[in-house]
């Protein structure tokens, strides 16, 4: 009893974080197992194509036809909010880490860019997604892509081993974003870069939407403001931080929720930063 009454704010936050993780995992496990690699992309109505094929949604997100047709079906679940590979401009031979790799679509695109001398590692905390991604390795005959089950707040990746970190509409789902950026910074080599597509908050999201675990899991409730993101990235050590909202994202964000126009609150943004080379 006394324990309950003395629960500290940080403990309460931890509980919320656990609840948040559970909501995210459950949602994406459901999506992973409900898709069969055909055109129906998910059974949820929000934050994903609504009855249309992932392809038509993905074109709006900044992938071109070549991208969409170069990866075998089933890897693109239409769950992103941009094209992080386009932000990253990858070079042959680079080591790429994808935070929240899902079924692997961005990893397979990145794998083509970095070629056989490069490698791509995808980390995702949802077992069903990682299994699906592994099946997609076979379909894509990809030899330079690996997936592991892991948490982006506790990356199982050694210090200074990665050239580029990409992520697509995932970091907003984390209950501890500063830790995610700190881990990303640690894993990057000096001179390495972060290229993220994610939603950012442009106006305060109504409290009832923010507190709803489903809305959080659907990339809405957990979005940060541009100023907050910039502060978190600088705090982690990143330099040359750029956060560019993409006005054209309104077209697909509008389809995420029927009850309110989410364009009033969130926009998709290209987020980038670099780990400084020492002594520069």
């Amino acid at each position, binding site marked *: 009893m006394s324990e309950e009454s003395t629960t500290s704010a940080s403990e309460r936050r931890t509980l919320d974080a656990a609840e948040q993780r559970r909501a995210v995992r459950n949602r994406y496990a459901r999506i992973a197992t409900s898709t069969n690699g055909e055109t129906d992309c998910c059974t949820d109505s929000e934050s994903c194509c609504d009855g249309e094929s992932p392809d038509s949604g993905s074109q709006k997100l900044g992938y071109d036809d070549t991208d969409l047709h170069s990866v075998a079906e089933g890897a693109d679940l239409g769950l992103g909010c941009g094209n992080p590979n386009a932000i990253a401009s990858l070079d042959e031979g680079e080591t790429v880490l994808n935070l929240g790799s899902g079924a692997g679509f961005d990893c397979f695109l990145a794998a083509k860019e970095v070629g056989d001398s490069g490698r791509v590692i995808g980390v995702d905390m949802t*077992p069903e997604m990682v299994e699906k991604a592994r099946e997609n390795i076979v379909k894509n005959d990809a030899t330079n892509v690996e*997936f*592991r*089950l*892991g*948490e982006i707040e506790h990356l*199982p990746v*050694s*210090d200074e081993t*990665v050239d580029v970190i990409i992520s697509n509409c995932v970091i907003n789902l984390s209950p501890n974003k500063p830790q995610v950026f700190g881990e990303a910074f640690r894993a990057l080599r000096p001179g390495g870069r972060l290229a993220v597509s994610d939603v950012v908050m442009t106006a305060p999201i109504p409290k009832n939407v923010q507190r709803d675990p489903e809305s959080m899991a659907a990339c809405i409730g957990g979005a940060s403001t541009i100023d907050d993101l910039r502060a978190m990235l600088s705090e982690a050590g990143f330099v040359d931080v750029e956060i560019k909202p993409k006005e054209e994202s309104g077209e697909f964000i509008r389809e995420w929720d029927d009850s309110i126009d989410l364009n009033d609150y969130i926009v998709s943004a290209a987020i980038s930063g670099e780990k400084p080379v020492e002594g520069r």
Partner: protein
Amino acid sequence: MKESLMDILCDPLDKSDLELEVDERDDDEILEGRLIGTETGEVYPIEDGIPNLLPPDMRDD
């Protein structure tokens, strides 16, 4: 997982090295086995080729 990717893997808890124990492999590909934290002693299973490197409190299923 490929054995050649061991060099960039680490223990998610304290970032120390991992030791690999293999039960089943197909060339460079490790299908079943485990990764053990050299400092933490934590055991991370490899099942169906997928290393489970979630922190222990996240492996609730």
